[in-house]
């Protein structure tokens, strides 16, 4: 079996650690004898979505997102078909925001892909920056990561990725984080997300294989002791505590 991962626009969207998600997807395929290949697309490249099994859309600064969004219109229809056809997508941070209709910043509105009915507005006062812990229906382990976003996202009637145990989540109010739509996960979690959450990584791999080979797939078990210990450390450190993101100027 073989999976092809499409890494979208790492030339612009490569904030902290996205490379770790790619590395994790690749390794967890290869350790099981599944062939894995990553295709990198820069901003002016044409993308053949039918050749891709997993799409990773990473995070970037607000300024860089603006540069990306001006180019996104060209791929919007192909991307939508891929998503509607159960294509697997993991969109992190800025990538999560771009899945939605728009991101309204103080400097203007960044138009999104409109693949999922969600919207983001720039928060007042401060960015939501802290470790974060979730419970997600998709996996049995807690989901741990780090969030760092100025935007507050309203996922409307969509299903969230997880319930916030510690941290702020989509908008610091709803108690939920991220979004799940078909085989798309959008989330603010980096850290990076996948290495410390191997079950989320395997969920993506399994969905991608089942879609590609049109049959149920059971992934071989890996020795995840180190992953589980890293995950448990964060979970135990923050569970039961209250996150208080600080105003950035207080830290200066």
């Amino acid at each position: 079996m073989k999976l092809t991962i499409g890494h979208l626009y790492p030339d612009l969207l490569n904030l902290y650690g996205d490379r770790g998600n790619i590395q994790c997807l690749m390794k967890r395929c290869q350790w099981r004898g599944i062939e894995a290949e990553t295709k990198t697309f820069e901003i002016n490249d044409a993308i053949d979505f039918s050749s891709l099994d997993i799409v990773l859309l990473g995070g970037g600064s607000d300024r860089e997102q603006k540069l990306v969004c001006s180019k996104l219109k060209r791929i919007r229809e192909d991307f939508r078909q891929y998503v509607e056809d159960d294509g697997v997508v993991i969109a992190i941070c800025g990538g999560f925001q771009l899945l939605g209709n728009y991101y309204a910043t103080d400097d203007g509105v960044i138009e999104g892909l409109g693949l999922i009915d969600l919207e983001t507005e720039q928060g007042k006062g401060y960015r939501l920056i802290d470790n974060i812990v979730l419970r997600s229906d998709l996996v049995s382990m807690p989901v741990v990561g780090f969030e760092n976003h100025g935007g507050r996202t309203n996922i409307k009637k969509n299903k969230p990725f997880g319930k916030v145990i510690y941290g702020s989540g989509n908008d610091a109010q709803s108690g939920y984080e991220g979004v799940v739509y078909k085989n798309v996960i959008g989330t603010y979690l980096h850290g990076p997300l996948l290495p410390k959450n191997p079950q989320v990584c395997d969920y993506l791999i399994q969905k991608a294989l089942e879609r590609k080979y049109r049959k149920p797939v059971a992934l071989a078990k890996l020795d995840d002791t180190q992953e589980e210990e890293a995950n448990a450390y964060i979970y135990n450190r923050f569970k039961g505590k209250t996150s208080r993101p600080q105003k950035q100027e207080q830290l200066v």
Partner: protein
Amino acid sequence: MMLRRIAAVWASKAAAKICKLLGKQGVTWAGKIALMIDPDILSHLAGAVREKIFVVCGTNGKTTTNNLLCAALEAQKKKVVCNHTGSNMLNGCAAAFVLQAGWNAKLDADYACIEVDEASALRIFPHFRPDYMILTNLFRDQLDRYGEIDITMNLVRDAMNLAPGMKVIVNADDALSAFVTMESGNPYVTYGIGEKVFEESINEIKEGRFCKKCGAKMEYHFYHFSQLGDYYCSACDFKRPYIRYNASMIETGDHLAFTVEGRRITANYRGFYNIYNILAAYAAAREAGFALENFQEVLDAYRPENGRMEHFLIRGTQIILNLAKNPAGFNQNISAVMEDKRKKDIIILINDNDQDGTDVSWLWDVDFDRFCADNINSIVVSGIRCQDMRLRLKYVDIPSELEPDVEKAIRERIANGCKNLYVLVNYTGLYSTHNILKKIAGESK
């Protein structure tokens, strides 16, 4: 008023002494207490500096550059105020002046060399206007504090605008630093490495792939490391500026050498990035009017300390302690370690305290796969986030041992290692690890 100032100085000095007795780094407290008692003390003491005030700003290389500049000025028989330890926020900066003042709250200093945190510059410059700023580079670092590198750039530019007469001595090879400097409108002068040094650049995450001026893609004639190199915009006129202090005929490896203004300069330690530190200090002192005939002597006498390529020899084990706190710095560290062809043990300590940055995602942007070599004897991971570090190495197929207690890790490697040990630590591990090494060195004397 004078009484209040004297009280501030005495209280501050006492606080620093007490912290020292307790084995704690007390500089920040000393500064905080001084400013609480006399909010004007920093502007007053800075105003007493007879000649010029330098600040050193930028992501990496601040402490080494600043200490080198201080050493160069002291070699000219000047009295210099300097925050040697690298406490570079408002309190640490105030402490540098206060602790150097006499018990009568008078300061006797010709120059000040103050390293300043990129974000804190905005809080410090209202107290005094520096004459010069060295801007070393801007890399992604502590994004949990700044949010995004664009925000850091804006903070630095705003600080420059607070001191419009301040001349910026800027690293021309860094497009981000050069852009910020030009955008500020401040007078500036450049230093850099004009020639191509490396045949291939490592596969690093690079900042600023797109022109900050117009948004088009940046092109490079060559890279030195990270985004440093000879850049030009594919669409507009933004490009690497003319280099006033240009280092040429570069040698790098087990020692460093380069030529600037017709002078051959050598240093007996590793780390290509140190060429920038030396060059920046050189350029700054030259700008202030010094001929610097004795600069080589200054370098020869300079001993890296405070965990910047700091050497220890303990029971036959050679130990180098070095700070590695962000991807650009860590990648340069890995280059320096790998230039040593002997067998080696490595201890990596990763903390996630506030001063380190609470987000350790950056570990995945470091090219650790370059540690996959025959001459790596062992890797031990330590510190608060040792498990993240171990996982990071697992995903490039490099096994490591977990030992959260760095003192145990160091003692074990001295006893059972291959006698050549590198200890790479991020910020808050630096002071404690330095003290642990001093302590162990003391025991074996």
